[in-house]
């Protein structure tokens, strides 16, 4: 068991690789394969999928104990608030851009992402959101004439 645990990282990586390969293989075989001389839409994906399966198996077979914890850089997404708020900002923009228009979409996206940082208080976030939304309206609607409505 300890052996498996030490090699967890390589084993998961291998399993995911092989799994994706298998998934692509199933999909690819569903399209027409054709022959080497005249390949159908499934042929090249099938080759790729087989490569991935082989690579996944290699990763599992050659798995090594991963280096001690802390050596790998896991700090990327350590800040939960950052992840949640920035994701929310992008989602808000995606939801609002066609339903409400550029100005509300930008405003909410800026407001939400500003709150990802603990140093920013509510008032600053609101001011920043209003100013950015106004500037974007000036640049993209007035100056560049982009095909996005400011308000719907």
């Amino acid at each position, binding site marked *: 068991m300890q052996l498996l645990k030490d090699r967890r990282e390589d084993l998961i990586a291998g399993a995911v690789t092989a799994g994706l390969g298998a998934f692509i293989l199933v999909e690819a075989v569903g399209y027409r394969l054709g022959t080497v001389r005249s390949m*159908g839409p499934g042929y090249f994906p099938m080759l790729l999928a087989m490569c991935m399966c082989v690579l*996944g198996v290699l990763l599992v077979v050659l798995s090594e104990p991963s280096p001690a914890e802390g050596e790998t850089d896991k700090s*990327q*997404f350590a800040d939960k608030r950052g992840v949640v708020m920035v994701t929310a900002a992008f989602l808000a923009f995606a939801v609002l851009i066609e339903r409400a228009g550029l100005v509300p979409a930008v405003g909410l996206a800026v407001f939400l992402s500003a709150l990802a940082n603990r140093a920013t208080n509510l008032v600053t976030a609101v001011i920043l959101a209003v100013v950015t939304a106004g500037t974007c309206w000036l640049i993209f609607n007035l100056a*560049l004439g982009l095909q996005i409505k400011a308000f719907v």
Partner: protein
Amino acid sequence: MMELFHNLGIGLGVAASMAGLGYCFLGVTLGTLVGVLPGIGTMATLAMLLPITFHVDANYALIMLAGIYYGAAYGGSTASILLNLPGTATSAVTGIDGYPMAQKGQAGLALFVTAIASCFGSMFGVVLLSLFSVPLARVALQFGPQEYFALMFLGLIAASLIGSGRSIRSLAAVTLGLALGLVGLDLNSGVARFTFGMPEFFDGLPLVAIAIGLFGLPEIIANAGRVVRSSASAKDISFRSMLPTRAQWKRTAMPMLRGSAIGSFFGALPGTGGVVATFISYATEKKISRHPEEFGKGAIEGVTAPEAANNAAVQSAFIPTLSLGIPGDPVMAIMLGVMMIHGILPGPSVISDSPDLFWGLVVSFVIGNVFLLVLNLPLIGIWVRILSIPYNLLFPVIVAFVCIGIYSVNYQVMDLFVLLAFGFLGWGMKALNFEVAPLLLGFVLGPMMEENFRRALVISNGEVSTFLARPISGTIMVATFLIIGYYVVQGLRKVLSRKMVSAESHNV
């Protein structure tokens, strides 16, 4: 020779026009700005500024986008040296010795030699670009699908094996990227592949959204909570303090030349680019230096060589892009995308069909690098001051611009969801120690590779040996297999020695 001058004259006409100069200046200034600011990569900037270029003539659009690209290569080192926060991935190496130099009070000197080395490397790359692109394009007119496939195969193998400690993972990432590149309607049969019934994906997955999802999003999120203010102040850096002594000039000359050569080589090879070039040139300098113990503690060679390499690579990356139509990295893929938006089909005929575009770009590189010297030497204080803008006020604005940029490429909300999805994919890959760069390269080359693979086998009547039978593609294929063989042997050695060690430890 006369031909070259004639061509440069054409280029001068485009690049030295008011519009040419204006867009070039705009591009390099924005590029430096973005390079200086940690948290926005080149890809994110290109995406933010793409909407602007849709309204501009193709020549100027490319001049500006290219300016952003190599301007960022200059600016990236500034934050790297002053704060040890690399503004771009390629400038991480510069910080290894640049930051210790700044701590020793040599920040001005470090910034000065960086700018000089960057300019030298760029010029080196531009000279190679203007000398080799035309003959290469001429040869490439004879290329069949076999040669194109072989070149891309070499590029992908080189990108995933050279300079990567985890070869199998990189190969897996490249393969997944290739498969992702196939999403959409198959041009030969009209079958919708991997679209899962969503018509938004019929044209393929959006490159810009994927690139920013993989590279930009993790960085934005990682920096979202950052409060630290920069401690660097512009007052410390007088122009006098920047000038190197004669001995220091001497120490930087050769590393600059070697860095440029290494950079040009890896830049021109499709697949490997600035990042690989900077690491290899740093390692080379450390190996041949007479005082390797100084490296990491503020060796001036450790700053100049990688910077020269980085900038040379940026310029020489245009060689395969413009003369073959094969993008060496994702930024180049965006360049090709912009060309296509403006109705120019990338390939070996671009140089002869639109000489004003190619030579205008070449001349604009020279002009842009002169602009950059001015921006980065006498005006360095401005960028240092920008570093002290509180990041918590800056990044929400970045988020907004990225949103608008991505949405305005296709006016599809789906692209924003793709961005988020690939952000999480990139995070998952990092957690399992996969590199994301090979995936993106595979994605870019996927459709082209399949197309050439199919065509080659149609022409040869299904003979797979056709890739080896033709002289040029055969040579490239053999070189590729030699690289693969080398890494397989190395891998086997590692496995065997590990077995030996574990066997011994069991005996004890």
